[in-house]
């Protein structure tokens, strides 16, 4: 009888333990994006921060993502109210400068913010090496399935989203992802 009870208790408890155990192996904050592996949604947005050096554009310009095809594109959604954006800013600017002259383009997309505040923020942060565009209707943000800022997308030379990075991005992550995409020859 005791053996039967133990078997019945195990039959109930073991699946529950297995499910809870499986849950422990997962990050509750991580929501998997379906976007990597798909074509990067195209957009055409106005430039509000022109960038510096050879990557600089005019403020009257617009950028269409598909025109950057043939380059690895690092697409960073940011905002002046976003604390983590403050911490990743130097990494993005430094790595953008490091890869100048190669087939890599960095592009900031201002999310849920005003260009005036964005411009002031860039000035306070000591500048931004690459240009930023404004997404006033948040359509690019929705197209990229954004949950918040910062989020960084790595787009291959063929225009496919290869990686999505949620939260603060580091120089190490940037170099590793960019190098892996530069190593791939477009077919």
């Amino acid at each position, binding site marked *: 009888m005791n053996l039967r009870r133990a078997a019945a208790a195990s039959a*109930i408890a073991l699946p529950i333990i297995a*499910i809870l155990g499986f849950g422990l192996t997962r990050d509750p904050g991580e*929501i*998997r*994006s*379906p*976007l990597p592996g*798909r074509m990067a949604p195209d957009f055409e947005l106005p430039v509000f921060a022109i960038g510096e050096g050879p990557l600089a554009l005019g403020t009257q310009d617009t950028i269409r993502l598909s025109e950057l095809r043939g380059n690895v594109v690092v697409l960073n959604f940011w905002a002046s109210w976003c604390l983590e954006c403050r911490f990743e800013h130097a990494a993005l600017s430094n790595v953008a400068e490091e890869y100048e002259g190669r087939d890599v383009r960095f592009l900031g997309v201002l999310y*849920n913010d005003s260009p005036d505040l964005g411009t002031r923020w860039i000035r306070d942060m000591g500048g931004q090496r690459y240009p930023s565009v404004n997404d006033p*209707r*948040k*359509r690019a*943000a*929705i*197209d*990229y*399935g*954004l*949950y*918040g800022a910062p989020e960084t997308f790595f787009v291959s030379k063929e225009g496919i989203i290869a990686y999505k990075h949620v939260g603060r991005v580091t120089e190490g992550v940037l170099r590793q992802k960019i190098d892996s995409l530069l190593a791939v020859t477009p077919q």
Partner: protein
Amino acid sequence: MTLVRGFALVLALVSLQVAAQESPLERRTRDVASQLRCPVCQGVSIQDSPSELAVEMKNVVREQLAAGRTPEEVKGYFVEKYGDWVLLEPPATGFNLLVYLLPVFAVLGGLLIVWLAVKRWTAPGADAI
């Protein structure tokens, strides 16, 4: 008390009036928007969220419905961007099935335990309470 009742009555009449004035497109938009999760909120639909992103997502819903897409196609658009997570009611497939099946198993298990307990209490020779 009379004042409260009067206020409730006026509120109900105004709600009815608003519902009656709602266009079919707006009704369909509300229906789809209440099934989509707001990405920047905690378990709230884009219909109920005042956040700017949710408002804009609702505009996308409205535009796509107005362009002739079906509610399923509109929801599919958001699933393509955010995954099944964006649906407040996840589809009953794969791992999600557990969400629907576990409560059923829990109730059945509970009923079994109650049945076994009652059977034991009422068995001949069981101690009277």
